[in-house]
């Protein structure tokens, strides 16, 4: 059975079709330009976000490093206070501050 929609359809004259296609050209071109613009905008925004994220990560990492160094120094201060002679200073300079804490304690005991 044919449906009601067929009842309302009529063949559109080719002249009108051509007119529509001709007028459509300019608008489609505008759509293309708009689409290209929004793509460039999207790329720029994504790049900017990535840059900002990298900056935040670098700053954050540096901050952690600085905090670690402060903590290291803070940990070493009591040891420095225990240095009495020139020999102790030389020995202390040879140690890796964190790893050789046990040795330092030993040295402390000996003195």
């Amino acid at each position, binding site marked *: 059975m044919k449906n009601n929609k067929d*009842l309302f359809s*009529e063949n*559109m004259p080719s002249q009108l079709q051509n007119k*529509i296609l001709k*007028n459509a050209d300019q608008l489609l*071109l505008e759509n293309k330009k708009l689409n290209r613009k929004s793509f460039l905008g999207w790329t720029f925004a994504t790049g900017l976000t990535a840059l900002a994220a990298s900056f935040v990560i670098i700053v954050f990492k540096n901050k952690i490093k600085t905090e670690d160094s402060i903590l290291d120094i803070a940990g070493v201060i009591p040891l420095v206070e225990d240095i009495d002679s020139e020999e102790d200073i030389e020995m202390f300079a040879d140690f890796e501050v964190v790893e050789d804490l046990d040795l330092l304690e030993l040295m402390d005991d000996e003195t």
Partner: protein
Amino acid sequence: MSNSDDQTLILKIAQGDKKAFGQLLLQYQDLVFGLSMKMVKNNSVAEDIVQETWMKVIKNANQYSPVGSAKSWILQIHRNLVMDYFRETNKWKNSEDIEDCDIVDDSENIYNLIDGHEKQAAFHKFFSELDEREKLILTMVIVEELSYSEISQKLKLTVGSIKTIVFRAKNELKQKLSLAEGGL
């Protein structure tokens, strides 16, 4: 062609694809043209509305959201333009000036009333003679397949009024077609 194909075409039109527009136009041009010619008595205005419909399809393609069908979206653009024209020419009655009448049966498929080419031609003639509001609502029911409550929301009329308008319009068509059949 499926609805998802139509939606892909609209997305491509939003990117400026000429071929996609040609395909979509070919798919629905006869329906939009036929509706326009039946709704608007002035042929030149009807053609302008057809053109404007397709230009709006291109302009608004980037705003299209695939909630309903692509066909409904195109027909909605067309309907809004037809309504604008009716309003501009003071042919649109938005008031609830509809007297109640007894609706016997409004489920009849209009196509059942038309079984020959002569009757189809008569249908076109009689449909064009209907009141503007009757024509618009009847196409919303028959072609756009909208429910009475959807039409009621869109046109700000009560569901009862919509039912009455549809019933009366179908009845008028039926009577005129019967009379025409007697004369054929």
